[in-house]
């Protein structure tokens, strides 16, 4: 009796704690996104800015369900997940502002940043292409006798139509890899509505078709996202093969900051899909007693300060120098084609 009581309390506490933790990452991600969008409007950003607005609850849940040593190949709207997985704020700011000290040294930017050696894979633009790369990493670990790691990656509803998506999902299923494939079904692929993207009733049908576990979740509900991603990651880790998570939500912004999203159906914005996951999360944090309104206010100003400090620092940092650049595309320098580099 007592034991059961204790267990329930611990669970309650840890649930409240992870809600609070997740919410703090979400606040940081939302504020950092907004800051980059402001700088974009001020003409200070190299390249585009793509927000995760409305997808933070889903994204943060991936980052939090993973452990150090796991692999995460995020997509453009995954700032919250990146931060929760351990990406420094500076990495994001540096790639957006073009600092040579960023992880990509000015050679690639913004959403394409990462640190493969730290398990944070760098996306290429071609949608669907990262899934098989994560598969390969998981295959490698199996061959190396290192079990117990999970690889997670994300895709949008539009990305699920690519050949790469289908090849890779089938590959993961055949090899029974510990892959967690997260689909943010955010109703639009750029401007294309889901009705022009797929004809099955739900993208969850895809899971069945490939012989993998499927998990549907309300992507606006932080609590539900945390629980679902924890289950999916745990099942992958325990050897149940690939897990597909399909989250329903609405992108609360344009494709990028250059896009005013005029095409979004206003009825969708009014529907439950259009809820802002940040507001839902705040209610859940308060309801669970995980934080007081005053504490939340304090977190808000803390993340703002952290971001301002990072931007101020990066604005002092040098840009890449074309004369100091090593224009070498391969590591085997003796095989560089001298003629080609002149």
């Amino acid at each position, binding site marked *: 009796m007592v034991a059961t009581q204790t267990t329930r309390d611990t669970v309650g506490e840890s649930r409240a704690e992870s809600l609070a933790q997740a919410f703090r990452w979400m606040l940081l991600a939302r504020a950092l996104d907004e800051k980059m969008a402001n700088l974009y409007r001020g003409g200070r950003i190299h390249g585009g800015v793509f927000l995760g607005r409305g997808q933070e609850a889903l994204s943060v849940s991936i980052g939090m369900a993973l452990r150090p040593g796991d692999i995460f190949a995020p997509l453009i709207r995954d700032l919250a997940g990146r931060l929760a997985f351990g990406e420094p704020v500076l990495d994001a700011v540096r790639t957006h502002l073009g600092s040579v000290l960023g992880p990509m040294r000015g050679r690639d930017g913004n959403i394409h940043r990462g640190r*493969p050696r730290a398990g944070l894979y760098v996306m290429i633009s071609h949608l669907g292409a990262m899934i098989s*790369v994560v598969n*390969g990493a998981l295959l*490698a670990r199996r061959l190396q006798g290192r079990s117990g790691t999970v690889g997670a990656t994300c895709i949008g509803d539009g990305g699920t139509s690519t050949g790469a998506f289908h090849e890779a999902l089938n590959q993961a299923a055949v090899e029974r890899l510990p892959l967690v494939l997260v689909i943010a079904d955010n109703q639009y692929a750029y401007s294309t509505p889901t009705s022009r993207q797929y004809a099955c009733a739900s993208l969850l049908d895809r899971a069945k078709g490939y012989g993998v576990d499927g998990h549907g979740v309300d992507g606006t509900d932080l609590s539900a996202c945390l629980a679902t991603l924890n289950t999916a990651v745990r099942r992958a880790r325990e050897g149940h093969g690939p897990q597909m998570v399909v989250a329903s939500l609405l992108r609360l912004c344009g494709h990028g900051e250059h896009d005013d999203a005029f095409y979004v159906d206003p009825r969708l914005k009014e529907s439950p899909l259009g809820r802002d996951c940040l507001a839902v999360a705040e209610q859940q944090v308060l309801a669970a007693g995980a934080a007081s309104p005053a504490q939340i206010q304090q977190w808000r100003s803390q993340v703002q300060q952290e971001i301002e400090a990072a931007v101020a620092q990066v604005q002092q940092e040098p840009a890449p120098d074309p004369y100091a650049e090593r224009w070498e*595309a*391969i590591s085997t320098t003796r095989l560089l084609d*001298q003629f*080609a580099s002149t």
Partner: protein
Amino acid sequence: MSITYLEAIRAAQAKALAEDPRVFIYGQDVGAFGGAFKATKNLQQEFPGRVLDAPISEDAILGAAVGAAIEGMRPIVEIQFADFSTVAFNQIVNQAATLFWRTGVPCPIVVRLPSGGTLGSGPFHSQSMEALYAHYPGLIVMTPATVEDAYSMLLEAVAIDDPVIFCEHKFLYYHLKAEALPETALPAGRARITRPGRDLSLVTYSAMVHEALAAAEELAAEGAELEIVDLRSVKPLDTDTIMASVARTGRLLAVGEAWPWGGVTAEIVARVAAEGFNLLDAPPQRLNAKDTPIPFHPNLWAAHRPTARSIAEAARKLLRL
């Protein structure tokens, strides 16, 4: 002992698997079946768990190879026919080829492409893709023409930390034989003078080396000495050896089995024209396959790609210029 080009490729893979636990082979039917051309015959039995059958998913195969390379493995991928690598084109040129430059993390993969034409193979089983891949920074493109090179260059490809597109020629698989496998080798990136001559530099690679040799025999009987340069790898391209040869002969004929437009032979001619214009006694020439898809019927195929006969004819013409 007599060993074929195909056996050399198998032997190199066996040696790589035996010597380096990071090496594994991934591709369609490479397992118990031993590969469509038997290039991996018995390797799965010899190295259990390290020769893996893949679903028919060239894009996913190459993507997985990149992920495995990031995690410290050295995958050898067999694409059943070079032609099907177009399905994996994105992963090769955008993922594998850019990884090192973008992230500083090298991408040690080998992509084996059974390339070029054989009798009756037609438009989808005969293509030579080397120019396409050589166009992209970040890739090394090897085109071995001999049994010895097939062996030593494949071993070198596995040892190199960068993605290597290994264009092995299907026509040579069974046609070529060597007495023994080499102990030492000329490194990739260095061309070889296969036959010295004073009258014309014939620069070529892969199966065309053998057509060129036959053409050179024909012309020798007529009193003209062709110098044959076997490039061995088309990227990097050994411009020094080409230029030195042209300096000796004053004439350049670049020959390739691939299509002409913007290809390897175009690159050779461009370099010689730009850097060695004053070495030339005649306009540099090139000979390629015809600019059409590759025909199926042997009669048509024989006339589609350069042959000893058409090479000899092109050389005669150039010698008269």
